[in-house]
């Protein structure tokens, strides 16, 4: 589903964010991306969402090479993805319903389908009763759940999340992770960048560790059990 071949990303000023990175995430897989700040987690997500282009190497999404994807094709690519941010990025001039419906509005769905899908997504994150509220009146955890509802409302094949639990307490964080797990259970490929090691190790999913732009370790849940041998 997501494949990076020998990818190097160098930012202006010669800072190398990723170095000769090879990575494959299968369809329907759920994986965590971890590592210290500046390890290249965000850069990796940006390459997948075509926010940044690699300096060298190739990026494939669903077997399509997006390394040099023209600008006009980027919106269509992103409609196959859902993105969750650390600080929600909700639009504060419209209510929860309108925030969540945005991806469907953009893709040009009929109003009846929009209504149905938005309610289904809000139901999934247990915010159905708050659809008319303004985001600002919600708690941090609720806002994050609105962000997640918006990311999944159009049933994307890939769900990307950048530090989705960064601002939440452990209990809420676990709840958010359970939600991601649920989406993975119905076949969505999920990739989450997080430095909350305790939390992600409990999820028993694949963990990709980055350090200084290099993949130093990628252990599947099975490997985790044989951690000693693997090392």
């Amino acid at each position: 589903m997501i494949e990076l071949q020998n990818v190097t990303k160098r930012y202006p000023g010669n800072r190398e964010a990723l170095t000769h990175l090879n990575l494959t995430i299968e369809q329907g897989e759920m994986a965590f991306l971890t590592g210290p700040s500046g390890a290249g987690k965000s850069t990796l997500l940006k390459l997948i969402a075509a926010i940044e282009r690699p300096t060298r190497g190739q990026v494939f999404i669903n077997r399509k090479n997006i390394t040099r994807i023209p600008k006009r094709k980027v919106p269509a690519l992103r409609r196959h993805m859902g993105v969750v941010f650390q600080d929600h990025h909700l639009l504060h001039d419209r209510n929860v319903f309108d925030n969540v419906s945005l991806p469907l509005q953009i893709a040009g769905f009929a109003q009846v389908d929009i209504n149905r899908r938005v309610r289904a997504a809000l139901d999934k994150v247990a915010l159905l009763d708050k659809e008319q509220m303004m985001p600002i009146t919600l708690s941090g955890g609720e806002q994050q759940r609105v962000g997640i509802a918006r990311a999944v409302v159009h049933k994307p094949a890939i769900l990307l999340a950048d530090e989705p639990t960064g601002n939440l307490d452990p209990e809420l964080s676990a709840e958010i992770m359970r939600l991601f797990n649920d989406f993975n259970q119905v076949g969505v490929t999920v990739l989450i960048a997080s430095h909350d090691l305790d939390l992600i190790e409990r999820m028993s999913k694949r963990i990709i560790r980055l350090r200084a732009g290099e993949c130093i370790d990628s252990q599947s849940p099975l490997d985790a059990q044989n951690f000693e041998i693997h090392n």
Partner: protein
Amino acid sequence: MVKARHQQPLARPSFKTRFRAYVRDHVRVLLFSLGKLYRTPFATTFTLLMIAVALALPACLYVLLNNLQTVTHKWDDVGQISLFLQTDTSEPALKQLKATITKHEQVENVNYISADLALSEFKNRSEFSDLLEGLPINPLPPTLVVTPINSAKQSDTLNKLKKEFQSLANVEQVQLDMQWLQRLQAITDIIRRAITAIGIMLGLSVLLVVGNSIRLDIENRRAEIEVTKLIGATDRFIRRPFLYGGMWFGLLGGILALLLVFIVLLVIRQPAQDLVGLYNSDFKLMLPSFIQSISLIGSSIFLGLFGSWLAVGHRIAKIQPS
């Protein structure tokens, strides 16, 4: 663990559905961008007034110029032609000449002023009557004053008549007293060009005012634009509310400008009519016609749209999620 049933990806909406959604989005954005102006009343009023004043000024001048031209058209009526004859013209030749001219199809009537009559009239009116008294002979020529028919009172036709009369026997000189009218015409031409230049400059300022408002709006919504881009919005989708915003600025500013024009014209209407009345004219100050009003609002909408288009231009393309 038993895996839950895999979700079916959402089918892409049909073309018909997408087209209807497209129209729906236009309507939604149309209202949304109007609501946006309503929610920032101070900034909106400020911008609209700037647009209105910038457009009302050249529009007022233009309407006044049009009025000036109708007045001078009426003064065209005085276009008489004076034929100064040779001093030695005989009585029969004179009669013959007068008859010929009277018969001309573009001539209303001919008035003969003899040299003696001209001299005595001149003496009555002139400060130099004493000086004239001392002259041994009458220096003034006999004159035929020709009044052309109304339809001939246009500078082209009058000039043609002048040439015709020039070629007649015994006619020394033909004078068409239109010079002041031509000067006035030259002046109105200059004024017309000046108004056009002012109009273009102020139109440009409308472009900048709208462009600047939209640019600020874009900057304020930078985060929102980044998010919508990440959700897969095309540049066109993001551009739309800003373009509609510019359209609203143009439409509302244009209506306000038209209102200002009417107020200004109604205020100066009476004094202007009094002034022209002093010249014995039944002048009525014309207000802008329906077509002119519509064109004012139309050009205002165009300027608003164009201004926002310039502001939006590459800006939206440049804002990328980070």
